[in-house]
């Protein structure tokens, strides 16, 4: 299998989907057998996967959505892999952010090999990457369930890899919550099979009649399961502890990439299986709003930097669900694009922020916000990256977070739903308060013990988070191209009738 050699020549001839899933898998197996060389193999595998995803996205943007029947059996019997605009964006996000996190982890592990545990981190991360790529390409409900399991177990492994008692307890709670979510999803899959006798999303989309009460129940069950896995407000108790107690690269992976899979599946289910009813969309929006407020309040009360960043993930997830619900049930054909853009924004910015927080903790030695300004060591580059990431998460122009929030509010205003606009503003103000709470100790110089050194705390490991933070601004200016790419394979054209939305 020599994907690298035939990279640009015949992108459509090579099944890049399969390479995107198998390359990290083979890398993980090699890393498992040769733990000493795990880091090298890991970086090579992630690089190869990024190449495959790049070729795939080039093929999809130029030739439109691609469908591939694994084993040649076709939809109802076999499993199909479909790469349309949304899937490719998620794959590109995962590959890009994953590559930066891998480089940061590599640099971090070179400095502190014991804490990084390369022998465990690389195989788990590569298996997680295989699971993520598999989930984004899959169109089969049960295959999605198995992919969710692969991702959950690998994520729990990464959480508990840190080894501390807090990490273990948080990991156990995370495992319980994600298993429960997966089982709720499995029950819903069972119902779908009991009702329609097939599991492929494309096929089901034609069988499902919108008004069907059974399918509404199934959708509710799936939403509860997926909400549990993505920590939407009432079901979020496990996320802060898990993301805060993991090691820096692990928590970046968890917060930026793992949480997105369930959100992606919510979009797919709402698109193929059964279009959400008005009441459900409102409920999801309200839960999102409550998440934004509750996440903000808890972030204000968090003492530790990583806990604050974890709580801001809960708030941002709420924002993404508000984006999905912004213009009511009829408007979901347009709203999903705002949600997808916000997902990308959150992934890039949150990965940068967690890596920066990790760097600050390594340099300063602790991450208690109140005492951050006491240490003479000031990792200025990591603090600057943290500030840039915060700007994108708050949604100030010209970052991609701003582009996402703009789409959200524009759709809501056009549809006349003013409450979502008000909620978004409250959320924005809360996140401003949260992140300015962190900026104050960065800029305070009258309480530290000893003089502030010259450019202290700069290291190679600062480069990946800075690249990610700057990327969130670059993507912000390129939001139009991303939105056109999302259109490929018109994922949402079929689901809901009237396309609402004020965009001219």
């Amino acid at each position, binding site marked *: 299998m020599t994907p690298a050699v035939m990279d640009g020549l015949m992108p459509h001839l090579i099944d890049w989907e399969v390479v995107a899933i198998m390359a990290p898998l083979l890398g993980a197996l090699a890393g498992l057998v040769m733990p000493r060389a795990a880091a090298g193999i890991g970086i090579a595998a992630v690089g190869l996967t990024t190449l495959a995803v790049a070729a795939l996205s080039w093929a999809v943007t130029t030739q439109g959505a691609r469908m591939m029947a694994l084993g040649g059996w076709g939809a109802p019997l076999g499993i199909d892999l479909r790469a349309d605009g949304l899937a490719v964006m998620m794959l590109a996000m995962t590959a890009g952010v994953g590559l930066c996190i891998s480089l940061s982890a590599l640099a971090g592990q070179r400095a502190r090999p014991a804490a990084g545990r390369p022998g465990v981190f690389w195989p788990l991360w590569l298996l997680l990457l295989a699971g993520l790529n598999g989930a984004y390409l899959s169109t089969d409900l049960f295959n999605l369930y198995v992919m969710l399991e692969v991702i959950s177990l690998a994520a729990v492994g990464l959480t508990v890899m840190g080894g501390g008692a807090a990490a273990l307890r948080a990991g156990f709670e995370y*495992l319980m919550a994600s298993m429960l979510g997966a089982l709720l999803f499995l029950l819903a899959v069972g119902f779908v099979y009991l009702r329609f006798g097939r599991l492929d999303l494309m096929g089901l989309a034609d069988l499902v009649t919108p008004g069907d009460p059974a399918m509404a129940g199934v959708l509710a069950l799936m939403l509860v399961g997926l909400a549990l896995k993505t920590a939407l407000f009432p079901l979020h108790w496990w996320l802060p502890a898990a993301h805060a107690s993991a090691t820096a690269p692990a928590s970046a992976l968890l917060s930026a990439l793992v949480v997105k899979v369930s959100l992606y599946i919510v979009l797919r289910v709402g698109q193929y299986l059964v279009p959400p009813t008005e009441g459900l969309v409102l409920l999801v929006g309200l839960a999102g709003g409550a998440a934004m407020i509750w996440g903000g309040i808890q972030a204000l009360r968090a003492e530790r930097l990583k806990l604050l960043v974890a709580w801001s993930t809960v708030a941002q997830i709420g924002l993404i669900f508000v984006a999905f619900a912004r213009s009511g049930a009829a408007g979901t054909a347009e709203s999903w694009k705002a949600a997808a853009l916000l997902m990308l924004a959150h992934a890039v910015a949150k990965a940068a922020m967690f890596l920066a927080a990790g760097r600050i903790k390594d340099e300063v030695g602790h991450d208690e916000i109140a005492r951050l300004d006491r240490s003479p060591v000031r990792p200025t580059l990591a603090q600057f990256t943290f500030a840039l990431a915060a700007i994108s998460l708050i949604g100030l122009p010209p970052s991609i977070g701003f582009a996402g929030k703009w789409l959200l509010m524009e759709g809501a205003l056009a549809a006349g739903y003013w409450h979502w606009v008000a909620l978004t503003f409250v959320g924005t103000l809360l996140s401003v308060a949260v992140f300015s709470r962190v900026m104050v100790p960065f800029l305070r110089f009258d309480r530290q013990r000893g003089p502030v050194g010259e450019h202290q705390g700069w290291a190679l490991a600062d480069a990946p988070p800075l690249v990610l933070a700057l990327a969130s601004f670059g993507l912000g200016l390129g939001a139009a191209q991303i939105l056109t790419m999302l259109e490929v394979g018109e994922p949402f054209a079929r689901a809901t009738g009237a396309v609402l939305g004020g965009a001219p």
Partner: protein
Amino acid sequence: MSVPGPDLIYGVAGLGMFGLGLHHAMTAAAPLRRVLALKICAIGASFLLIVAAWRVAPGAIDAVPHALVITGIVVMVSAMAVALALIRRIRALQDGEDTQPGHTQAGDTQPGHTRNREGRQ
């Protein structure tokens, strides 16, 4: 209501087990009980699939759900193994018997030098 066939009986039983398991998984205090509750939920969900297979036609049983449930069982046992390992580890840390918090060996590079005390047996 015609005489309930086995599919309805086992379907409702499966759903009942799922409800029981779900409730205890979220509210039980003992970690071991929560793990068992999850397995019971999994069994409940599997019932639906097997009943769906059975309903197709009493003669020709549909094989796909069977494969799915086997996959589900294997996934469930691996998840439970991880959960039980976590329970053991948390309990060992709690009881303070364990001597090092778990990351003594740097990855797997150098040979282990776990200073765990000689077994008490």
